[in-house]
């Protein structure tokens, strides 16, 4: 009977949970802490022609276990965004503004020494071309155990055991032999598997993958994408996946940020983005790619012109000179990121959706 005395506590809990689940999305965010929060990121490169801004006002966040795809064409700033997060910008590049909060630290202002403790440990990166990111004179085993000895304090023998385990896990046959092979002995697909094993070696919370399958053949790409999907489901690792391929986005993303000329122009969950794209650039991009499913022979709608160069950004909206729906104000006024009515998780940087109450905080 005494237990009933405290029933009101349980009831209160239920009321509390119900109340929370009915709160607007923005407020609810504060109860599930984001793993990564990029706010107003601005990255500059100093060149002979002066400073050019490669990434401007880029904001997004990532929950634990979530896969965010950054999609865009060359020069859209997607790779620079990744390198800014990793603190791996070239010598002439620097984060000129904004913040990159990872858990409770701002990566943008963290000293290199502290950043190095995070990189390869809590955040790992997978690059496009594994041959250039693996050291050709070290064996696969040496390279993979290096991070584990450094970050996890394993002995050489322990690390070697763990490497063989990891190589097996990423589907490399004869892992016990491959561990002593040099990178050039492996095929492109196998090298990318080894890179994935290396990224996983310290059990990271976040993996940043920059075009991980672009250099691979389509049947090998399918293998690697499946592997990445299975592993991230199993380990619960969050991922930022950078790609130019909308097909890869459709297969992999939970959420998508479409980038154009250094800015995020639209952000939504993957189904909303493909079913109801709002930004004229997103729509045009989707109409310009050929599909395998669906009717053949329909003419593709090309986007006229080409991506602007960083040194000569158009005024106003950066897409206005290629946009079929451009209005007068698009030429002069820079659109802000607007929140769409009715879908709090769908934002778009376009004046077409400028409804007075819908503005999102920067």
């Amino acid at each position: 009977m005494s237990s009933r005395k405290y029933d009101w506590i349980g009831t209160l809990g239920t009321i509390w949970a119900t109340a929370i689940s009915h709160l607007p999305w923005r407020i609810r965010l504060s109860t599930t802490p984001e793993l990564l929060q990029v706010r107003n990121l601005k990255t500059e490169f100093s060149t002979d022609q002066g400073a050019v801004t490669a990434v401007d006002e880029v904001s997004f966040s990532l929950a634990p276990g979530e896969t965010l795809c950054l999609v865009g064409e060359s020069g859209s700033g997607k790779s620079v965004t990744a390198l800014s997060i990793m603190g791996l910008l070239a010598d002439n590049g620097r984060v000129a503004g904004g913040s990159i909060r990872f858990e409770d630290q701002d990566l943008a202002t963290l000293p290199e020494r502290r950043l190095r403790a995070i990189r390869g440990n809590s955040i790992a990166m997978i690059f496009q071309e594994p041959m250039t990111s693996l050291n050709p004179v070290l064996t696969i085993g040496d390279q993979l155990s290096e991070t584990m000895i450094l970050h996890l304090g394993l002995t050489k023998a322990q690390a070697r055991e763990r490497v063989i385990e990891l190589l097996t896990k990423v589907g490399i046959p004869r892992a016990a032999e491959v561990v002593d092979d040099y990178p050039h002995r492996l095929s492109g697909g196998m090298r990318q598997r080894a890179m994935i094993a290396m990224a996983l070696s310290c059990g990271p919370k976040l993996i940043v993958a920059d075009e991980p399958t672009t250099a691979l053949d389509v049947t090998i790409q399918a293998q690697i994408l499946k592997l990445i999907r299975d592993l991230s489901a199993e380990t619960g690792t969050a991922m930022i996946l950078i790609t130019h391929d909308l097909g890869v986005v459709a297969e992999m993303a939970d959420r998508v940020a479409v980038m154009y000329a250094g800015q995020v122009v639209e952000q939504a969950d993957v189904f909303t983005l493909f079913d109801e794209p709002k930004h004229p650039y997103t729509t045009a991009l989707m109409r310009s790619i050929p599909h395998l499913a669906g009717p053949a022979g329909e003419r593709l709608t090309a986007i006229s012109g080409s991506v602007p160069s960083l040194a000569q950004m158009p005024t106003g909206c950066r897409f206005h000179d290629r946009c079929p729906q451009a209005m007068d104000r698009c030429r002069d006024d820079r659109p802000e990121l607007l929140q769409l009515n009715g879908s709090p998780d769908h934002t778009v940087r376009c004046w077409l959706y400028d409804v007075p109450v819908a503005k999102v905080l920067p």
Partner: protein
Amino acid sequence: MTAPLLQVRNLKKYYPIRKGVMARTVGQVRAVDDVSFDVYPGETLGIVGESGCGKSTTGRAILRLEAPTAGSVLFEGTDIATLSAGTMRRLRTDLQMVFQDPYSSLNPQIRIGDLLAEPLIAHHRLGRAAAHARAAEIIQVVGLPKLYLNRYPHELSGGQRQRVGIARALMLEPKLIVCDEPVSALDVSIQAQVLNLLKDLQAEFGLTYVFISHGLGAIRYISDRIVVMYLGKVMEVGTTRAIFAGPRHPYTEILLDAYPEANPHLRDRPRIIVEGDVPSPAKPPAGCVFHTRCPSAQAICRTEIPQLTSDDHPVACHFPLSASKTVEAVG
């Protein structure tokens, strides 16, 4: 049926592997191994396959940029594999090529106008002035303004450069253009521009294309018929509709399944993801070259090379798939 413009018959291109100080030949890379197909006037024949399948070598052999090891390439009935250099030179005006990389295929030191006029002058078709006048016409045909004639290749974007590459191939009014991965190096939004341009030019000038690509989307969009290659061999030939609606070779089916479709509702579709890597063309498997990765391989596949059937949807497989399987049309 009209006579084929181009007939490729049992084409082989082997590259020797040399070793040691005496450069002794210790083996051969079978880049193209017994390939046959026809190209009809006015059509686009797509050649699709992954890296190392021999599609580019086949394209280069058609233009005799590679001398075939064996087999013949008949253009309007003449075997160009055995022609003298002089006769071949005259024939080259009919056979042109568009390359993958518009950055490395255009001489950076020569203005666009001179680049375009050069083939006309070299083949003694026209004098300098007339050739330049023609260049001014053609550059507009490919959708570039005339003022670009005075620019250098580096001043142009990738898409614009590929337009110049296409314009240059058009200068001699060829009958056949081999396009080797013409859109692979271009941004997504530019690929559609170039694919549409190629289609428009074909309609306008009655061109015949051999379109080589690893991109299934582009291949489906532009091709009338498709040749699927794997490890130097032809796996399957068919109309675009037949190949995509009902592939007969297990490899073709796997290739189509592997394509990441830009539709998130299809992400969990049932499909086969093949294990393993493409074997080396220096040591191709015995029997059917695909048997090492084929889900339906039997004992015979390991020993006997399957021959291409001679029906209207030829396939080189001991156990072809029934053509009734249709791809779901979604979206």
